[in-house]
């Protein structure tokens, strides 16, 4: 199912570097803050994962992915760009011929991109002038999606712009419609070859060939559109049997999307740095949120642990399994890390009363950042693994302004399907106030400029799960949406819904402008 929605938000969180009816809009006061149209200036790569209505009866939704590039002139205009869309039937490419955008003082705004098929409409929130979050906001209600955008470095728009060791995470659905996650690592030789690498493919809860399989591949300019590489950072790739397109963000990040008919994998690869080769190189607190599917249906899993010399302590794992919440804890587990430097590691622990062992595989991007995949029996899920601060987590340490993005499934709408949210909120003394846009994936259920209020109530041990409660002034109101929240380094807060009728996950990312 739409497992990748969660991942989308989680991965976007790493790289700074769905309720109501009616559609009534509440008019808030003008936003204040340091952002303006000038904050969005230059070339940005973007990627989104979402759902679209495909049936002629307008009743059946399907997953889709999009990846691309747009150029903002700092004055509210989109001057050029390109995108590829995979509707699970193979991908199509479009060129943006124009568009427009607005950015308010709080970093929130709108974005339209015009191509030969029409005008695409998005709501955006800037984290900084370099990156932000976006959701699709078509008023016809025929699609929704969530993703992120990040400034591109055009000096890397070369084949040689992809060079060195990268960790990657691709997720989506396989050609049969089952959730799939591929995490791994590759070495790009700067000349078009992924010459070495390893991956773990969890395809519908089958760990293909047991995981940790060698992979190789190629990357190049698109022979049909060779100038796209220099213009947009766009090219084509083949990696471990997956074919698709890439967009270079810079020398430290590349966005990938499968384009062959049937599958809808998409994700990012990130340059690896200071990769540990011993368990001693991984220490301290870590948090994660993963999204995916279990036998019961959509699943989110979040948690934390302390790593120390190959041993795990203070393990907490929260599961929302198709609407049933289960929080568990353990005090013993183990982890490993590849001594050869691939960054691949494993996490294993058991919880009293649980029949199945908890098993994760991760690939490190840095000593405190990794992509992580759940390989526990009967589960396919993935997400981000982030280090926690060594300093005290408190209301005061967390105070500030945040971009907020969540995505997932809800059963509170007229149908059980996707919801996406983006916006901005201030956090002070544990209280949240802000404004958001929300797409509930139905006609007339695109809510803009909705006041948000809530609380982030820290637990006695704030390194564990804390309680995030959000109310949205939609009409009718969405009051008391509850999440477990996990605090990571740099005040990034990952969260997952704890409700029976909502399986969403998201992120609070501090705004830095």
């Amino acid at each position: 199912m739409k497992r990748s929605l969660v991942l989308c938000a989680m991965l976007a969180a790493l790289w700074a570097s769905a309720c109501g009816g009616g559609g009534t809009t509440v008019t808030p006061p003008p936003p204040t803050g340091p952002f303006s149209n000038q904050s969005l200036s230059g070339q940005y790569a973007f990627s989104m994962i979402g759902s679209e209505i495909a049936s002629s009866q307008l009743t059946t939704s399907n997953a889709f992915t999009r990846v691309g590039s747009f150029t903002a002139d700092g004055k509210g205009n989109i001057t050029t760009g390109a995108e590829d869309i995979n509707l699970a039937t193979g991908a199509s490419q479009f060129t943006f011929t124009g568009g427009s955008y607005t950015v308010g003082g709080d970093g929130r705004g709108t974005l339209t991109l015009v191509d030969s098929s029409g005008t695409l409409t998005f709501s955006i929130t800037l984290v900084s002038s370099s990156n932000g979050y976006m959701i699709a906001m078509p008023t016809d209600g025929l699609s929704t999606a969530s993703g992120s955008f990040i400034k591109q470095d055009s000096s890397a728009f070369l084949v040689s712009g992809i060079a060195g060791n990268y960790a990657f995470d691709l997720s989506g659905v396989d050609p049969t419609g089952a959730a799939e996650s591929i995490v791994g690592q590759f070495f790009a030789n700067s000349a078009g070859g992924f010459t070495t690498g390893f991956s773990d493919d969890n395809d519908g809860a089958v760990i293909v060939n047991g995981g940790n399989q060698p992979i190789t591949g190629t990357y190049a300019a698109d022979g049909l559109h060779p100038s796209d590489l220099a213009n947009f950072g766009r090219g084509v790739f083949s990696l471990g049997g997956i074919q698709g397109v890439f967009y270079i963000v810079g020398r430290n990040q590349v966005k990938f999307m499968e384009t062959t008919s049937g599958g809808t994998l998409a994700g990012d690869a990130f340059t690896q740095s200071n990769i540990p080769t011993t368990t001693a190189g991984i220490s301290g607190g870590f948090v994660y949120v993963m999204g995916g599917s279990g036998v019961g249906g959509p699943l989110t899993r979040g948690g934390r642990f302390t790593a120390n010399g190959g041993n795990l302590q203070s393990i907490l794992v929260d599961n929302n399994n198709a609407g049933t919440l289960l929080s568990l804890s353990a005090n013993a587990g183990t982890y490993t890390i590849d001594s050869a430097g691939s960054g691949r590691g494993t996490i294993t622990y058991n919880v009293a009363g649980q029949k199945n062992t908890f098993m994760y595989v991760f690939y490190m991007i840095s000593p405190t950042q990794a992509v992580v995949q759940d390989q526990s029996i009967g589960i396919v899920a993935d997400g981000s693994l982030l280090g926690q601060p060594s300093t005290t987590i408190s209301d005061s340490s967390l105070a500030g302004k945040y971009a907020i993005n969540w995505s997932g499934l809800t059963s509170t709408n007229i149908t059980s399907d996707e919801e996406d949210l983006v916006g901005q909120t201030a956090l002070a003394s544990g209280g949240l106030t802000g404004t958001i846009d929300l797409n509930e994936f139905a006609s007339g259920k695109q809510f803009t400029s909705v006041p948000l209020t809530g609380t982030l109530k820290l637990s006695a041990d704030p390194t564990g799960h804390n309680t995030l409660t959000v109310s949205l002034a939609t009409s009718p109101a969405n009051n008391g949406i509850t999440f477990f929240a996990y605090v990571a380094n740099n005040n990034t807060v990952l969260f997952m819904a704890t409700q029976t009728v909502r399986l969403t996950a998201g992120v609070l990312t501090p705004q830095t402008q």
Partner: protein
Amino acid sequence: MPAAQASISYDLSRETVLEGTVVSFTSNSKIPPLGSHVTLQTASGPVDVHLGSEGLLKSNDIFLAAGDSIRIVGENQPYGGGSFFAARILQKGSQSVTLRNSNGIPLSSKRNVGGSTIRSRRGGAL
């Protein structure tokens, strides 16, 4: 009462077949596990069956209503403090749809390749 399990495994060797009459069909259950459910009247009593994606049924032109006779291949699974019947294959007359893979993971609907064109669907929507 057995402890609730964070993950459950599906085993083809444990599959059973349910045959019966639809009592009710819920496309969008708010009772976990989320998704579409059908209550089936079997010879041994009513059974709540989790189907998963309603879209998958629709995309295969399968619509369920009270009184329909159907056959389901699946497996009873522990869930929360109780259990549910996870459907892998549903048959209605000559129609059949696979709802889960062999590991029990629910499948999602896929766009019909032979359907309308991408562009016409995009029309300002995507």
